[in-house]
């Protein structure tokens, strides 16, 4: 029973890796935020999978739903931020965001 659990954990780990790889290497702000989305997909997959495997699926579902709500508000704030940064910088390059140093 628990090896199924590790299958899902395996795939969610893959998703998280993809997200982190993108965050570390990509330069476009929106691309970065997409990476964050991918990581949260991985986490929600792990959450639901744990629920399914442990037969606590109802509880898991409510958790995922709350998590998605949180994710939405995070997306809203982040995109608002990105738009404001774009208005200021006229560019989406993350390397420009390095004025605060030392």
């Amino acid at each position, binding site marked *: 029973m628990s090896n199924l659990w590790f299958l899902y954990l395996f795939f969610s780990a893959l998703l998280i890796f993809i997200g982190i790889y993108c*965050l570390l290497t990509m330069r476009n702000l929106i691309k970065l935020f997409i990476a964050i989305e991918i990581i949260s997909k991985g986490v929600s997959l792990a959450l639901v999978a744990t629920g399914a495997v442990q037969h606590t699926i109802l509880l898991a579902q409510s958790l995922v739903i709350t998590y998605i709500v949180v994710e939405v508000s995070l997306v809203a704030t982040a995109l608002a931020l990105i738009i404001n940064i774009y208005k200021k910088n006229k560019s989406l390059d993350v390397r420009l965001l*390095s004025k605060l*140093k030392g």
Partner: protein
Amino acid sequence: MTAMTLLWPIIFPAAVAILFFLIPTRVRFVREVLAVISSTVLLYLGFALFSLKELSLTTNWLGMGINFDLRLYHFSAFILLALSGFLFLICLYSTVKMKDHPRVREYYGYVFLAAAFSNGAVLSNNFILLIFFWEALLITTYALVTIGLKPTSHRTAVKSLIIGGFCDFSMILGIGLLWASTGTLTMNQVHVEPHGLAVAAFILMMIGAIGKAGAMPFHTWIPDAALDAPVTFMAFMPASFEKLLGIYLLARISLDFFQLKVGSSMAMVLMIIGAATIVLAVFMALIQKDFKKLLSFHAISQVGYMILGIGTAIPIGIAGGIFHMINHAMYKTGLFLSSGSVEHRAGTTELKKLGGLAREMPWTAFGFSVCALAISGVWPLNGFVSKEMVFHGALETGYPIFAIAAWVGAIFTFASFLKAGHSVFFGPRSTEIPKTKESEAPIVLPILILAALCITFGVYNKLPLQNFIQPILSGQAEAQGSLDLTTHALNLFNPVAGVSILCLIIALGIHFYGWNRGGKKAYLASEPIHQLIGLKQLYNLSEARFFDLYEQGVKFLQWLARILFQFIDRPIDFIYEKVITAIGRSLTGLLQKAHNGQYANYLAWTIGGLLVVIWIILQLLR
């Protein structure tokens, strides 16, 4: 006559001193009268105490064995009497000499303060009390030298302070060692076998004593003071007080505390210092151009005799040394006072400018010549008696070298006084100084009294020997039976007396030879000696203060201070000021560069940090 009277010789002069400080400078006449009266009272007190023989006073003072105890016994009574005598003469003398001196108010104050401290030192029976009064004299000496008001007088005052300080600090160390080894501080209970640590204690105490007395290595401030300090001070301290105190302590060290053995290493040390002081000082004295400086060098060389005498550790020698102390005090004060009266009248003590004053100042001349003969050891006078005893003692030790040194000293002493007397009083009348007449009575009287004393102590030497010197030696265990010092004191018909008379004749020869070569000018009498090949360079070096322990010491101190400052203090400060701040700044700079503001960089740290933590936890769990 209860024990409290012992406090009188200390408190009375101190109170008078304070009184002197309070009397404003304008009030003229009162000061002189007070000085003379109080010194006579002190003299009377001296005589009264001398007749008492034994008295002691002990009160608790600081605990731990340090208590305020005074003890009067024959030796200290004798010194006390001598001190008060000289104080009386000097007060009498300075009533006129120092009359219109700007700082006369402080002068009398310090003189009486010095008297109080010296009486205290002589009477004290506890080492701490002794060192208390002993070092207090430093300040009065310092103050009295500054009263000279010459531009360099403060430098000399500091010089005397530092040399005296050095000697007294080593004396403190000696006292500490004595206290550590014997466990008690009361002086009459201290008897220690001189070996191991006690030798160091002896050496240190001895340095204290000869430092005060003004013997060789620590003498250099006296010649400078001769010019910078007032002449009454020279008569007061270096001539009488310091010699009395110094040799008193030296005698007590070698007789009471350490019981010096004949020919023991410490005795040898004393004798070497004595001999060296005699010879070197007298050579310096010979070539002096200034009358007071010549006398000051003689004061130093005569101390050599006393130290040599005590150093022989033979009763005759010790008695000679102590007797020489009192004799020397008398004629040296007399000589200084006569030079003072010459200066008082002629205005200068340059031998070159003086000449032929005998006619105008007959009494001073007479006083001077008596004392000069006494110091040179001419037959009937006291000088001869004590020098003979020292010569006998020196010969009996089995090392003739010391006796020879003493004799060489005698030769040149007489030669230099011939030069001095001839050029000041007896030569042709010099033209540079105006017509003068004899000094006032209060100046001349002390000189004459001293001259008379020299004669009496010489001719009736039984009087001083019997009741002053004899009791001191009675304590000596190995003194053979009744010590008949006085029997052959004055007889001339023994080899030792013969040799000393021979020396006098040689000195006469040297003087006249030098006098002729110098073209009949007395003050050039010493030139032939001065120009001798070997001696010439030595003289130039010593003129340039090369041999002066103090000058070399000051140079060493400054050099050491610079080393300490540059190589210990500044590097430590450099570490705090520069090194630590630099490390801090560079580390900060490094870390700041790491924060370059890139998001990817920060995320990499976070992920890296996570992996490291996981790895450590797994390691620790295994």
